[in-house]
């Protein structure tokens, strides 16, 4: 049985050898940057060490027995087959260990679930396959999408340092303040996870979950959606930037201003007409970012799951219907409502693009004013 033993020693060695080459992959759970995440780490290490000690004792006795109590050594088997004393002992000791373990676990859990007295509240809404952040105390809300280019995913370009863990607009929170998260979803169940905060909470459609964090150090923290949410579940990262409260205030006020300005500009846009080239250009960019995941870059969709736009009757004839479905989505399907995700200009452009790309050569232009008209219920 020496084989078994040497194998058990060689396994960790092999693993360590693999570690040496790994690009900075930590081997253990992160301690994180919050009081709670450190408590969670301590719980993790405590239970892990308890398991190691029990394992060492049980496997130690087992391997001792395997070495000593083998027929090849000419031993005679004993015939004992019960001992009430021993059996009570090895039932009672684990119970005690478990009780000792349950006490700190209970304390941490209760602390984690206390979402009262928050300084900042952010509503986090998941949808296929992006996050939406809305600051309840400020007029700031936006979507946060994967920023890794498709070319890196399909191995046409070298992968960047933060491959699949980068977004266009990260969540920004202040350090040292209690930030409460309200999680929900627009479609399937997602799960918002930032390991450094030890926050993982499901975003359930139609319900609101709560979580909170208080980050000590400014920094950039990355996570991912943790609940299988369909085709692009692997492409739904979370990036959080923690800034000092002063920097956060500057940022959040700037953001509120920017959003208000964009809304004002949108009204001006209604009077303007854009040309085909500009619409197609903006439309293609918007399509790639928001539509191509389902309808595919070639507009052919995925048969049986996501309908084709290329040659579809809606994209060829029905303009108001087309605008309506992009604005409001289609209930009972994966088609989302883009009215709150995109600007009027982007919606106009993407519809124009869909009506003129891939051989859908209708030659029709859709302007922001047309979209606005449908939005106001006048376009039917």
């Amino acid at each position, binding site marked *: 049985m020496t084989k078994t033993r040497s194998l058990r020693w060689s396994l960790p060695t092999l693993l360590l050898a693999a570690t040496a080459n790994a690009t900075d992959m930590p081997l253990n759970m992160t301690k994180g940057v919050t009081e709670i995440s450190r408590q969670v780490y301590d719980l993790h290490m405590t239970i892990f060490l308890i398991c190691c000690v029990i394992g060492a004792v*049980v496997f130690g006795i087992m391997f001792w027995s395997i070495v000593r109590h083998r027929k090849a050594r000419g031993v005679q*088997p004993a015939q004992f*087959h019960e001992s009430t004393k021993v059996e009570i002992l090895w039932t009672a000791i684990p119970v005690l260990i478990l009780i000792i373990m*349950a006490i700190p676990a209970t304390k941490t859990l209760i602390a984690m679930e206390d979402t009262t007295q928050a300084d900042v509240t952010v509503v986090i809404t998941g949808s296929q396959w992006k996050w939406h952040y809305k600051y309840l105390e400020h007029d700031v809300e936006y979507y946060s999408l994967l920023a890794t280019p498709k070319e890196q995913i399909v191995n046409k370009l070298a992968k960047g340092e933060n491959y699949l863990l980068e977004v266009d607009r990260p969540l920004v929170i202040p350090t040292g303040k209690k930030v409460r998260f309200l999680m929900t979803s627009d479609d399937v169940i997602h799960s918002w996870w930032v390991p450094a905060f030890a926050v993982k909470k499901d975003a359930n459609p139609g*319900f609101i979950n709560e979580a909170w964090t208080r980050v000590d150090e400014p920094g950039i923290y990355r996570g991912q959606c*943790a609940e299988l949410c369909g085709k692009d579940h692997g492409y739904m990262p979370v990036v959080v930037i923690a800034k000092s409260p002063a920097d956060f205030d500057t940022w959040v006020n700037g953001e509120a201003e920017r959003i208000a300005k964009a809304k004002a500009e949108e009204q001006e846009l209604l009077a303007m007409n854009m040309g085909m080239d500009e619409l197609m250009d903006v439309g293609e960019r918007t399509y790639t970012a928001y539509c191509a995941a389902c309808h595919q870059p070639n507009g052919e969709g995925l048969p049986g799951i996501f309908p084709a736009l290329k040659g579809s009757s809606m994209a060829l004839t029905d303009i108001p219907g087309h605008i309506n479905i992009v604005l409001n989505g289609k209930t009972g399907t994966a088609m989302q409502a883009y009215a709150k995700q995109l600007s009027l200009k982007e919606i106009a452009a993407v519809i124009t693009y869909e009506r003129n790309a891939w051989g859908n050569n209708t030659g029709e232009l859709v302007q922001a004013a047309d979209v606005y008209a449908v939005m106001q219920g006048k376009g039917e």
Partner: protein
Amino acid sequence: MSAAVKDHEHDHEHHDHKPSGIKRWLYTTNHKDIGTMYLVFALIMFFIGGAMAMVIRAELFQPGMQFVEPNFFNQMTTVHGLIMVFGAVMPAFTGLANWMIPMMIGAPDMALPRMNNWSFWILPFAFLILLISLFMPGGGPAFGWTFYAPLSTTYSGDSTALFVFSVHIMGISSIMGAINVIVTIFNLRAPGMTWMKMPLFVWTWLITAFLLIMVMPVLAGAVTMVLTDKYFGTSFFDAAGGGDPVLFQHIFWFFGHPEVYIMILPAFGIVSSIVPTFARKPLFGYASMVYATSSIAILSFLVWAHHMFTTGMPVAGALFFMYCTMLIAVPTGVKVFNWVATMWRGAMTFEVPMMFALAFIVLFTIGGFSGLMLAITPADFQYHDTYFVVAHFHYVLVTGAVFSIIAAAYYWLPKWTGFMYDEKLGQWHFWCSLISVNLLFFPMHFVGLAGMPRRIPDYALQFADFNAFISIGGFLFGASQLLFVWLVVKCARGGEKATAQVWEGAEGLEWEVPSPAPYHTFETPPHVK
């Protein structure tokens, strides 16, 4: 056990009334034939599900998308899970139950032989339907084997209908199999085979069968609700219609957690049969084994929401499920301690069944440790839905359930075929499996702790080296199982003749009939003293 048993056995081989050729297998009501069919079916499914795992590991070998599309990747993880759980592990255990339970309790056959035939023969159709669904437009089910709503309802493709139908058939088959086991054990035990004399494999299967008839209808309810939500406008799991998507998870895991024990309790029975044989010493703590198994079965109904800590539940609820889950460590620990105590001061030899049983004890315990870690709710928030969980359930299901099935196959192959298997080849199979399975699953713990979510087709660069390593382990483990097929085929064709007792330390009624076991055994019940 009675020596008189043998007297009855001599005359039976020559009056086997069985049709020849394919009809023998289609019409058979013989528990041994049906057991064989279950086992062969499970082996085929093991390789089909395994091939899907190879696709998964090939795609994950490097970051970026190389071989498949994300949607197909999701279909592979989903169908791999469904096939391994319902097509490989469960039918394999039912096959072992069919073969061994009547012989262990001195019964001539299963109590309901025609139902037995039916419960097997609907299974290939269930899996045919599931596999065919992969070729539909849009592909097969892609929502994970746990098919959480609304991903499996509003947002799924039309293969969902086939998935639901196929799960219904699997459920009917399992329920019939379970009823058969219960009726057989209750009614057909030989005189003198009292409850507390039954071999532990029989005990654990009896308890498993009760779990099956209690939870398979729950699964049937869950898939039916998915079906009506998707096609008939109900809103069980849709908040817009007054339903709740989390309700789905409660129903699913009320089935799902006992299901986990359905896949491990018979394994406990197998290991409890093998260890005493090769230690040449009676099982330590037989009665406590029976009580521990029953406690695990009862507790399995009280822990389902530990799969759902992140769904948002009241603190009191989370605490209840955390405490109950931790409690399961106690009876499970008792079992492990009993096996070690059985080995203690025995006279052990290390034939292949014993090697797999020993590997089971160590590696299943490692899976148990990670299970205990997962029970700690605050830590579970970090582990949940990462590769740490994938590592955990593959340790309990592959090095647990599957290793026990392989151990059982080696242990009873001589009884089934009448020939000894090739010990050297078996040892090769064991060592190749043991090393590769750990290369495959052990690093997953680290990948998960480092933060890699499960069920993703592509990953951040930091996980690249470990994933390449894991994939190599996966390919090696897959290839190692080909040795097993070769060995089984070789053993079925011939070899050294097996004696009735086969193993020096083997005790029990199944070892008192000749090897190979005649077509009909115990037509006159033996007397157990």
